[in-house]
């Protein structure tokens, strides 16, 4: 928890340092404190109070972080798709939508990476292997690569509008791609069991405390997602502003360059 702590400590205003602030506000600080508190609860319940599972024994504790991270990842991709769709088909082309889509995808990719790594540990305990070619795992891995591609497309360059349009299109194509990938790997690996923890009717008894721990995990990570999204999309806004400002400077320099030249008829100038 310490690294998150120090990150939050950097956010509050420190008036002696500078009058210019970062991406933190009162809202993010409240969110951040709530995140830390709920993360603490998750640690206490996930590692402490919640009992061992009948089948999975202690390994079930991994699921209290594993399930929330993949939930946040899917939430992030859904937000990306939603913002991409609104940007493309909406009347008002707001670049803020594009920035939220980009920030959300970036966070979600990071969370998929965490999910895959943690999932491998859980698999090592439960299955004895790090990886199985199961439908959900394979889909998640391909999803990971697909959105790494999306982030690469965002970095292709060009104007902000061009970036927004291009990445919105790719964001929607990814939505087209994911069900097809899932369908194909489902057909391919139809042998594997369905989600045990999230499917109570499988006959697996879920202890109330276990369910509560999972619930705490989902809350904690959703709060974290919101906190990260606020910071990152504000950071992206500033990156865009600085980019525009660079253009302003270049423009002013270019205009000065023209003024420096002896031009016979300056009346045609419009600056």
């Amino acid at each position: 928890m310490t690294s998150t702590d120090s990150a939050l400590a950097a956010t509050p205003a420190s008036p002696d340092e500078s009058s210019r602030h970062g991406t933190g506000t009162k809202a993010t600080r409240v969110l951040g404190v709530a995140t830390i508190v709920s993360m603490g609860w998750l640690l206490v319940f996930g590692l402490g109070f919640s009992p061992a599972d009948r089948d999975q024994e202690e390994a079930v504790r991994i699921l209290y972080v594993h399930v929330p991270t993949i939930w946040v990842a899917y939430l992030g991709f859904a937000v990306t798709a939603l913002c991409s769709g609104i940007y493309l088909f909406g009347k008002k082309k707001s670049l803020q939508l594009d920035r939220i889509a980009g920030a959300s995808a970036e966070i979600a990719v990071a969370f998929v990476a965490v999910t895959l790594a943690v999932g491998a540990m859980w698999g090592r305990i439960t299955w004895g292997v790090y990886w199985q070619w199961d439908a959900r795992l394979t889909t998640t891995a391909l999803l990971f690569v697909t959105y790494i591609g999306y982030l690469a497309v965002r970095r292709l360059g060009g104007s902000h509008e061009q970036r927004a349009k291009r990445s919105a299109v790719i964001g929607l194509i990814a939505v087209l791609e994911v069900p097809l990938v899932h369908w194909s790997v489902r057909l391919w690996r139809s042998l594997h069991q369905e989600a045990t923890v999230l499917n109570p009717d499988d006959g697996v008894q879920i202890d109330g405390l276990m369910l509560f721990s999972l619930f705490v995990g989902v809350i904690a990570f959703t709060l974290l997602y919101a906190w990260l999204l606020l910071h990152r999309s504000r950071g992206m806004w500033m990156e865009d502003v600085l980019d525009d400002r660079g253009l302003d400077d270049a423009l002013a320099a270019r205009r000065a360059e023209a003024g420096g030249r002896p031009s016979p008829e300056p009346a045609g100038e419009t600056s």
Partner: protein
Amino acid sequence: MNSAPTTWRIARLVAAKDLRVEWHSRIATNQVLPFAAVTMVIFAFALDSDAVLQRVAPGLVWLATLFSVLVLVQRAFAVEAEDGALEATRVAGVDPRAIYLGKALALGLQLFVLEIVLLVAAVVLYAQSVPLEGALLLTATLISATCGLAAVGILYGGLTAGQSGRETLLPLLTLPAVAPVLIGATRATEAARGTAGAVVSDGWPWLGLLAVFAVAFGVGGALAFGPLIDE
């Protein structure tokens, strides 16, 4: 003044133009086809067992096809970039959907020929044979998988054309997208030739997947191509 030609007519013109470029330059014939054939030979070196090769031959055919798609897509857009022709089509206001469909059609036809050659290579090199009852499934698989591959390839080829890092970005975008085609086409081909006890009827669900994939990406690609190549 004549009326503006329809999207479909321009698509046919673009496809004919691409095939004519290939007819004059013979790059695909003289370079990509040998590349794919060498890939098939190299697989044999890596796997080093007749039994294994026989078992995995359908997958190797489609893997070699997939690599060739990447090369052919680069070529399809190198032709456009060489003298600024893609830009010229944009200035000319040619319907991007028509360019997309036309280029995908031309790529699909070239891929189809390539796949036939690879299948023949598999018959010769990996001791494969296709029973008569599997022929229909195999043909249908070839056609729908080719359409899907061409649809994805031209879409991402157009996006990456002229960008720095296009050689690496194209596979990064294309490979995860065409994973369903690789899985579906391989399983259907195995069913068609009866690899590892598979029967022909196992292949039809896969064919359904391939067909849906081709239609989804064909329509999606035609709509997305314009915004993607525009500045």
